[in-house]
């Protein structure tokens, strides 16, 4: 069975302070799918993403990655399959140089040094940042940091890419490059974003979360075109879907 499949079954999660973040979320994403998670702030998107690589443990319900049900023991396997790009690239980059940061994951996976080197070159080349190899990550621009953060995850050769707000803080040109990059990945993609125009271009399916529940799940254009649904859940119908004529 493929490792690229993600299934969440009736997932519940409460934070220690009593906030109910997830209340029975279920969905299934097949190999190669590109799915957007949209919803207002506090809808439960980040909480859900943190379940997908076993960082938050399931209290009730199940998360299945490929053919493995996530438990404390299997979290390591899931982390190898699921590459997670966090919202703030500063959280993701912690090594002295870009190359060492990208090598961190493959080294931890126990790959021999020549393969690690090949992975670093491949990943940095893929995001167009090969020239930054020896630079310290904290001196890069926001766009470069984002690209390097994606490279750190690509270097682990994950089957599934999970991204939290990939286009936040990016200027229009970097955002455009990010969209092209995301479109070029064959991985199964799960993207949480408020950037609905990006969602239209990258994802074929949208899951709308509100109050910790899935309130809609379907093809991107159908869901995002439903003005009353969008407004009811703190979202809005994207501009590009309002007008059919080009501007």
């Amino acid at each position, binding site marked *: 069975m493929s490792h690229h499949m993600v299934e969440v079954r009736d997932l519940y999660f409460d934070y220690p302070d009593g906030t109910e973040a997830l209340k029975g979320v279920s969905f299934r994403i097949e190999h190669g799918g590109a799915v957007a998670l949209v919803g207002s702030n506090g809808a439960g998107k980040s909480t859900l993403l943190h379940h997908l690589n076993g960082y938050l443990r399931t209290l009730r319900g199940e998360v299945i990655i490929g053919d493995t049900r996530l438990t404390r023991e299997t979290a390591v396997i899931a982390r*190898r399959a699921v590459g997670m790009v966090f919202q703030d690239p500063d959280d993701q980059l912690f090594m002295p*140089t870009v190359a060492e940061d990208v090598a961190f994951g493959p080294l931890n996976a126990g790959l021999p*040094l020549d393969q690690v080197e090949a992975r670093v070159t491949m990943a940095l080349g893929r995001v167009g940042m090969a020239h930054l190899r020896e630079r310290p990550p904290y001196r890069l621009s926001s766009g470069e940091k984002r690209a390097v953060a994606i490279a750190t995850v690509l270097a682990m050769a994950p089957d599934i890419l999970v991204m939290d707000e990939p286009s936040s803080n990016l200027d229009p040109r970097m955002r455009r490059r990010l969209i092209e990059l995301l479109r070029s990945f064959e991985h199964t993609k799960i993207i949480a974003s408020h950037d609905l125009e990006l969602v239209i271009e990258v994802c074929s399916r949208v899951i709308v979360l509100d109050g910790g529940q899935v309130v809609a799940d379907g093809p991107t254009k159908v869901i995002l075109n439903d003005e009353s649904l969008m407004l009811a859940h703190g979202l809005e119908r994207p501009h590009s879907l309002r007008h059919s004529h080009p501007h």
Partner: protein
Amino acid sequence: MRVMDWIEIGKMDDLGRMDTPVHRLDARVKAVVTFAFIVIVMTFPPHELSALTPFLLYPVFLISAGEIPLCYLLRKILVAAPFALVIGMINPLLDHQPVAAIGSWVITGGWLSFASIMFRFVLTVGAALALIACTGMLRLGAGLEQLGVPKVFVVQLLFLYRYLFVVADEGAKMVRGVEVRSSGSRALGFRLYGSLIGHLLLRSMDRAEHIYRAMVARGFDGEIRVLNRASLRVADGGFICGCLVFFVVARRWNLADEFGQWLMRMVT
């Protein structure tokens, strides 16, 4: 940005990445030699000063051959100086025994041991900082681990170093936040600083948690792995032997004294 400027974030990493003969030496060798250096400097009797002077050669060697900017290192030593100063200051208060006189100026044992403590402080802290500057914290950590230092300590050390950046970063953001709303006023009161420090702690813990999460997501299991794991070369052997022999000789004989006497003999 003043907080950032003060600790000159990242400068140590930049220095550690340079490529000089000293940087190319194995991290283990440099760690062992520096540790031996610190231990030997500490074993001198409290009033010793002249016999310590030849030991200045070791940090000076690291700094010059490693092309480390002297001013930068001196500033770093100054940051730690108050601690040594406080400890050293007790000596002149306790020990009034006169040991020497220059003209009418009598030097007491207390002042001599104070000078000795400060000199040792400059030697040891200077050598330790020079070691980090010409090795890089990460390679040094990996070297220590290869030497058999328990992994727990090494990981603690590396995290301490890495989180320093996190705290400084959060601190800088908060200071900026205060500055834009304080209308140029400098006296902001204890209550505000109490709250700031509390927030700094909580925010740093939060960021530390995020970073840890990102590390775990990429398979971190408590093991440190670095790209260019060094192997011992002939130069490393030469460096360790040369330094250790010099330390032992300088510990056994007062080289400064001997040199002075030899010079006198040459003159007369």
